[in-house]
């Protein structure tokens, strides 16, 4: 007796060829790219980011830094014109050139501060999560102590604390205000608690898994277990958090520079170009429009990329 096929429309599965069966498993980065590609806004974000980086680097070839810091009070506060497309600032510097060099510094601050933040966060989170016990509770109390005061308050106090007479630095033939280093350091030093908590949570679950037991059984050192076995497995949330951290660092730099405790002139950043712009709100819109727009664009595009990365790498965690 034959039973009628209840779902006649479904074709029987084609047998897989040997090649397809043995296709190499996708690596994490390939899988992530496949998912990331589907996230349209994230691709737009990457596009804007690339354009911004080109703007900041290629623009440096068009205008010299001397030109960006050159001031002529005779042409102060000029509206955008063909000579100065973005206008000139309070003491007659060209705003277009300054946004280019300011962008370099802002991006630099964002990237290096995040590197510092990530290093600190990983080390503290890893040690705390892996060893547990007294070390864990001490480190976590310390983390909470930092988290308890809003970051911007902490930053202002630290900016004031480290702001003595900082000499200008000359790196690669360019002169930087030493306050750039200070700002990078304080942003890095105050942002790690969130990351440390994420890393700690990952380590707490992963250290109980079988592959760690296996690694321990084969006699791997503690250092190896932490950095070569557990850390690569918890990389997804770290990458996401670091990406979003760049946007955060750029915004924070802009805030403290805006409040007058950040990077000192002559070095331009997008933040300190805005300082004092509100005094000229009714006279010169170009003072705040262009740097502010650039900050908005870069933060927005980094946030889009971060969101795409989160969907691609770490679909479980989904905040706003």
């Amino acid at each position, binding site marked *: 007796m034959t039973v009628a096929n209840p779902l006649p429309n479904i074709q029987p599965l084609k047998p897989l060829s040997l090649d397809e069966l043995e296709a190499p498993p996708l690596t994490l980065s390939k899988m992530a790219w496949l998912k990331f590609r589907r996230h349209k806004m994230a691709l737009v974000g990457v596009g804007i980011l690339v354009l911004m980086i080109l703007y900041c680097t290629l623009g440096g070839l068009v205008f010299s830094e001397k030109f960006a810091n050159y001031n002529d009070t005779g042409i102060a506060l000029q509206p955008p014109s063909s000579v100065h497309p973005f206008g000139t600032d309070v003491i007659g510097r060209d705003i277009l050139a300054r946004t280019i060099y300011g962008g370099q510094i802002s991006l630099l601050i964002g990237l290096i501060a995040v590197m510092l933040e990530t290093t600190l966060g990983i080390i503290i989170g890893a040690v705390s999560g892996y060893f547990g016990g007294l070390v864990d509770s001490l480190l976590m109390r310390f983390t909470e*102590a930092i988290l308890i005061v809003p970051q911007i308050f902490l930053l*202002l*106090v630290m900016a*004031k*604390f480290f702001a003595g007479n900082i000499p200008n630095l000359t790196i690669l033939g360019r002169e930087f205000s030493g306050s750039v280093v200070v700002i990078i350091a304080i942003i890095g030093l105050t942002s790690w608690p969130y990351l440390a908590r994420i890393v700690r949570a990952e380590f707490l679950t992963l250290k109980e898994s079988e592959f760690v037991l296996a690694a321990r059984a084969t006699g791997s050192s503690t250092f190896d277990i932490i950095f070569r076995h557990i850390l690569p497995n918890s990389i997804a949330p770290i990458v996401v958090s670091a990406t979003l951290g760049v946007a955060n660092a750029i915004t924070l730099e802009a805030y403290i520079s805006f409040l007058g405790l950040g990077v000192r002139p002559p070095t331009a950043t997008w933040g300190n170009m805005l300082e004092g712009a509100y005094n000229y709100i009714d006279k010169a819109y170009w003072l705040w429009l262009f740097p502010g727009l650039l900050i908005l664009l870069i933060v927005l595009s980094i946030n889009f990329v971060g969101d795409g990365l989160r969907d691609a790498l770490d679909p479980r965690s989904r905040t*706003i």
Partner: protein
Amino acid sequence: MFLISILLFVMLQNMGDPLATMGGRSVTRREDRERLARQFGFDKPILVQYVYWLVGNDWTKVDINGDGIAETPGIRKGVLRGDFGTSLVTRQPAMQLILSRLPNTLLLMLVSELVVVLGALFIGVYSALKQYSFFDNLITTLSFIGYSMPIFFLALGAMYIFAVNFKRWGLPYLPTVGMFDPQAGQTPGQLLWHLILPVTVISVNSFSGYSRYIRSTMLEALNQDYIRTARAKGLPRRETVFIHALKNASLPIVTIVGLDLPFLLGGALVTERIFAWPGMGRLFIDHVSRGDTPVVMGIMMLIAVAVVVFQILTDVVYAWLDPRIRYN
């Protein structure tokens, strides 16, 4: 708490010479400087200064006239007994200075929080009900932009459009600085009028986070079995959404509001600065840049205490609202 207070104290001690900012030009003579340093205890080692700040120095004697013998009883009571010291800039008690600014900040921030929560509830519920509609997508995009928007850019933009250009076009324009118009006097109407811009700016920034959050908790609640049951027994849609779903969806919102509230005390530093709002955020900036330890420490400690208290309160309220949670 102790840890952060020690950390901050050590840093603040090194924030430059507080005596230099004191009294303008009058404190230049060397003996005066020494006398003042003794009076404020700056000549002591940092650990002693910290103990004096924490528990006061009225149990011991300090040397005021500089002959090496401690003879005058101290008068400071210490933070643990509610004495935050005297502001080095204005010579007023630090606490009095802070408390005089507190109502302004609270007014600004509570109004903003209220606007944010009510607006976010409305938008969040609406976009959860119309998931993936044009409106929902629009809100998602807008909230991403609002979330990424630096406050100062928004504030300057709003000022430029609503104050500068409205004035130019002869429309009624919004005021940009302060709480009152000096000519119109301190009337509630004036206050409201001055509140509009700062509140809008603060709201746009935190609005996006809240509305996204409410949207996702609301979506989760709408997919629960009890909603289907409520629908199945024929309750009107309005009732299921607003009574059954929203009630359960708003539980997690209590948590974020509770955790956000203490940070409102600090106020929005940047917003207060731009709109010249005389609140705690501006007090903080003014006194940080002048190295005024007692006031800065006072503000920081106030926020830190508020954070701890509100965390405990949130836990308690949460357990009270949600009977599923039990604390042992």
